[in-house]
């Protein structure tokens, strides 16, 4: 069935709420408003205000309440409207959600799912355009995923809810309108494990989330020049599936990582370092990174466009690696 990333996410929420009484959804404007990105539209009407809970603007308290509710036997899905506001909840996520199982010697677990929109590209300026996935991917005790397709939008949520660990799901705001095929009765998908979205021999393009689609577009363009790019979708940002990543790079001997995060300290840096650690002698050239320029994202379109990874820059980086740049 033809659907959108938004509808697939909504369907995942609906199915979870239907199938498990321990599941509930809370966050700012998930109910009456219908979700700031219309993802939860209609769920309040179907499941009522006890299970679809509008919260006050209190990120730290309602994320922490999600942790507490998970400790208390529920399977909360907490929506933090965007990653930009999640900074206000980081203490709860890093100091409580990520630590409780270990600090308690394994007595407690925190089966919590936190969803948040991420990313730039819509001229929302410096305070509303963060891509801080790399920060979350740094924290032991939580899992981090970034669905980039309708299948993953539909399937990662139930997979996350099946685990006893806190899972953070990053949904790039520019993906909600993405259309794709979804098999009827599509359900959970494996949470961990990268996916080769396109096979190729000459260079590996590694990405996730919305940037994956830029990488795929770049692969198309590279093909015009006879360059066959393999495109790897990380899917899970913590843990990283280095086996698949390194496997592909061993084959192509060249890698370009595309990441909407700022370059310095980006997830792309971690992946580049890991590839080099494991496949140094197979590399034909140093791993390249296409990231966001190191600037608070400006409002003006030409400046924002210039700051973010672009298909041309991916193509150029790949060509350069292959010595055709």
């Amino acid at each position, binding site marked *: 069935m033809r659907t959108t990333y938004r509808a697939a996410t909504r369907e995942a929420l609906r199915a979870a709420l239907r199938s498990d009484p321990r599941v509930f959804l809370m966050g*700012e*404007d998930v*109910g*009456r*408003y*219908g979700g*700031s990105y*219309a993802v939860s539209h209609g769920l309040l009407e179907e499941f009522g205000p006890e299970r679809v809970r*509008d*919260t*006050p*603007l*209190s*990120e*730290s*308290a309602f994320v922490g309440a999600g942790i507490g509710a998970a400790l208390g036997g529920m399977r909360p899905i907490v929506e933090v409207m965007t990653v*930009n*506001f999640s900074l*206000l909840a980081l203490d709860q996520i890093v100091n409580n959600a990520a630590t409780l199982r270990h600090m308690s010697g394994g007595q407690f677990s925190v089966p919590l799912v936190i969803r948040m929109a991420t990313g730039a590209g*819509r*001229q*929302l*300026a*410096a*305070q*509303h355009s963060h891509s801080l996935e790399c920060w979350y991917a740094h924290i032991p005790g939580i899992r981090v995923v970034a669905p980039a397709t309708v299948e993953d939008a539909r399937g990662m949520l139930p997979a996350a809810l099946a685990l006893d660990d806190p899972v953070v799901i990053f949904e790039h705001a520019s993906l909600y309108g993405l259309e794709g095929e979804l098999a009827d009765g599509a359900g959970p998908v494996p949470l961990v494990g990268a996916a080769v979205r396109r096979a190729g021999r000459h260079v590996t393009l590694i990405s996730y989330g919305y940037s994956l689609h830029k990488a795929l577009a770049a692969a198309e363009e590279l093909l015009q020049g006879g360059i066959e790019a393999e495109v790897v979708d990380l899917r899970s940002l913590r843990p990283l599936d280095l086996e698949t990543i390194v496997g592909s790079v061993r084959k192509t001997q060249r890698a370009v990582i595309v990441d909407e995060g700022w370059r310095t300290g980006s997830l792309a840096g971690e992946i580049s370092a890991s590839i080099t650690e494991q496949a140094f002698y197979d590399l034909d050239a140093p791993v390249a990174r296409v990231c966001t*320029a*190191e*600037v*608070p994202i*400006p*409002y*003006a*379109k*030409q*400046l924002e466009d*210039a*700051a973010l990874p672009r298909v041309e820059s991916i193509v150029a980086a790949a060509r350069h690696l292959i010595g055709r740049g």
Partner: protein
Amino acid sequence: MSPEQAVLPAPAADDSRAAAGHALALLRLMLLIRRFEEKAAELYSAGKIRGFLHLYIGEEAVAAGVMQTLGPDDAVVATYREHGQALARGISPGAIMAEMFGRANGCSRGRGGSMHLFDASRRFYGGYAIVGGGLPIAVGLALADKLQGRERVTACFFGDGAVAEGEFHESLNLASLWKLPVLFLCENNLYAMGTALARHQAQPDIALKAGAYDIAAEAVDGMDVVGVEAAARRAGDLVRREGRPFLLELRTYRFRAHSMYDPDLYRTKEEVDSWKQRDPIPRFRARLEQQELLTGGALEEMERVIEGEIAAAVVYAESGALEPVDDLLKDVYSPAPA
């Protein structure tokens, strides 16, 4: 809180203030804000303005009334819904429009957009788009004034939704504990996006919360520009005189959706209409006509001039240059010190 409860009569004692010139200036300012935003909405639909656009339509009396009571040395901290504050503070319509067009002649050189208007020359410290994020900034500005022995007020605007944030609590405590001259201005428009006040506040009486910080407070009808100005003046005088914070709650309502993305599913047409009955502009106009301060074709003339100003602002914005892409990394850091 029902619309009814929110209605407080404007203190009669202050009507004198609404005399002649000043009164007309107030009306003119509210009209300027209204027409400016109507044009902005139109240009947003036309794709000339992008990103988020939050309209102030219906709340004009708050910015217009409060800003009358601030001097040039006072400071202003606002939110992402700050066109009204910016215009009332004297930033030119052209500079604001150009900012929303993303042009280099905008008041933030096109780097901020609608949510981040700045003007150092007017001590307008900007629109803050993280709800509650401006309050600690205002506390710090007031602390700087206190430490430098300057008798100034920092006016800090925020919405009812911000009251739920921890930063509201921390900032009011700190401002009161340290006796800092901050005028906290809560624009209570009864909604935080789609969440009604009673569904985000266990105690919906916002002014009452000031007691937890030993801060004086008052709630006034934010749809009555005269009452707003009078209350802001009383509050500001107290802040200036005693060098302590004050919490002024302005009970108002936004006539438009939260932002251009908002389908506005959470309010009834009746509710919105009942508030439109109390539109601050016709209400004040009627009062001026009744007092014969507004006569003949004065209003039409006013509208005509404003229309011209806004047209000029659009021309100014259209004519603005784009920041060159080569300057992308400008103003991330200061130039290294000599």
